């Protein structure tokens, strides 16, 4: 990936020097190993801070609407899809946006590694190998084995909307909804038990919501006092209400970037809910969010012959 970073830095430097943009939103090295952190560059000298590797896991579209002025954004496939949805929903002005598109081979799921090695003390990534020095043990991984679950089923690793494309393209893996099907094939009781277990882990810190590029409501339903959707108590049922409520808010909008799951400190399987909704949206309305400017969000349109299997049988 490393000739790419020179091009990214050069592009960022040029854009800032020419005054085409006020800020470049990209990634810099984080304070922890295998973590990058979003950064906001405002002067050309800072461009060398930018990095580009398999740790660039945040969805930068999250910061697009809240950053004032003209901005350039470094966008992976999912970031660009998120930007597309935000543009469709009139959250962004296209003229204020300069998208530096980079194809993405996937990002590392740090939680997967830490489950084995304990807290990571040191890590290096070279040629598709991730060497980790952990508190419990040292281990070397193939990148493909520790790739995030979302990236493994990602159908759009190449940016869909760009002003400047850097680097080559990545071949999109073939993927279906077999992960959802596997869960669907379980009995209702098994699924109930599965989600109960997952929801019992949730501490409702709302890190998933904060990391999500689509969660931009000025007042989220979880913060709303009248009506009070959630009481703030510790309750598995309320956790499920939050997670399903959020999944339904993202219906036809979720771009499957996985920022929510990676942000989760408790390892809740948020993906199980969002993938199910995405599968339904794809099957019922043949819609995938943010892949084209011409396709309207699935829940903004309708057709006279939409499926009606949900009606009560009389």
């Amino acid at each position, binding site marked *: 990936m490393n000739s790419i970073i020179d091009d990214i830095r050069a592009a960022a430097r040029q854009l800032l020097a020419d005054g085409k943009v006020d800020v470049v939103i990209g990634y810099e090295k984080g304070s922890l190993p295998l973590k990058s952190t979003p950064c906001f560059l405002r002067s050309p000298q800072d461009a060398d801070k930018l990095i580009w590797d398999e740790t660039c896991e945040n969805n930068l579209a999250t910061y697009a609407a809240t950053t004032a002025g003209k901005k350039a954004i470094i966008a992976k496939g999912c970031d660009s899809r998120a930007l597309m949805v935000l543009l469709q929903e009139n959250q962004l002005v296209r003229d204020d946006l300069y998208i530096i598109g980079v194809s993405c081979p996937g990002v590392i799921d740090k939680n997967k590694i830490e489950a084995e090695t304990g807290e990571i003390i040191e890590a290096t990534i070279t040629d598709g190998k991730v060497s980790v020095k952990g508190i419990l043990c040292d281990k070397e991984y193939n990148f493909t084995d520790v790739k995030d679950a979302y990236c493994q089923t990602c159908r759009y690793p190449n940016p869909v909307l760009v002003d400047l494309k850097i680097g080559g393209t990545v071949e999109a893996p073939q993927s279906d909804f077999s992960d959802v099907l596997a869960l669907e094939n379980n009995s*209702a009781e098994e699924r*109930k038990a599965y*989600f109960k277990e997952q929801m019992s882990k949730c501490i409702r810190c709302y890190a998933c919501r904060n990391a999500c590029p689509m969660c931009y409501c000025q007042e989220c339903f979880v913060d709303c006092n009248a009506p009070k959707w959630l009481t703030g108590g510790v*309750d598995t*049922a309320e956790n499920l209400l939050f997670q399903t*409520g959020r999944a*339904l808010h993202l219906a036809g909008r979720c771009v499957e970037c996985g920022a929510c799951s990676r942000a989760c400190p408790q390892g809740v399987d948020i993906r199980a809910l969002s993938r199910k909704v995405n599968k339904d949206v794809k099957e019922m309305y043949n819609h995938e969010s943010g892949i084209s400017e011409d396709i309207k969000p699935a*829940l903004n349109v309708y057709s*006279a012959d939409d499926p009606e299997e*949900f009606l009560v049988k009389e």
Partner: protein
Amino acid sequence: MGESQVNTETKAYEPKIAAFLCNWCSYAGADLAGVGRFQYPATIRTIRVPCSGRINPLYILKAMANGADGVLVSGCHPGDCHYMSGNYVARRKFALIDSLLKHVGLEEGRVNFSWVSAAEGVRFAEVVKGVTERVAALGPNTGVFKVDGGGTDE
């Protein structure tokens, strides 16, 4: 909606069902059932909404969190919406809600969707009968969304 309701005469369990009815069709249908004196079980608690398109998925979840044993959502037949397309956009939402709730393990029959027009008083009574039977068969709400203590601290 704390403790479950029992019929005073027959001592049989009667579910409590939150019924979200659209103002223009289903609510008028319920009204017609009343005016026409078509009997149906007194299990529903009607909540009148301007349009089925106004129904937020959270209404359904919160009703169950607060202890409703079942939910009935009803609006105009597709094509008959007072606001032209409200029930069409609602239909897409309902299909996703229904599918996701079943996926997370909610029993089939807890949440029910139907179209009832203002002229279908008899049918409204039939729908409520059917929904009541299904929910009664499932028993009191102990489901995935039921919050202990009623889900409200107000």
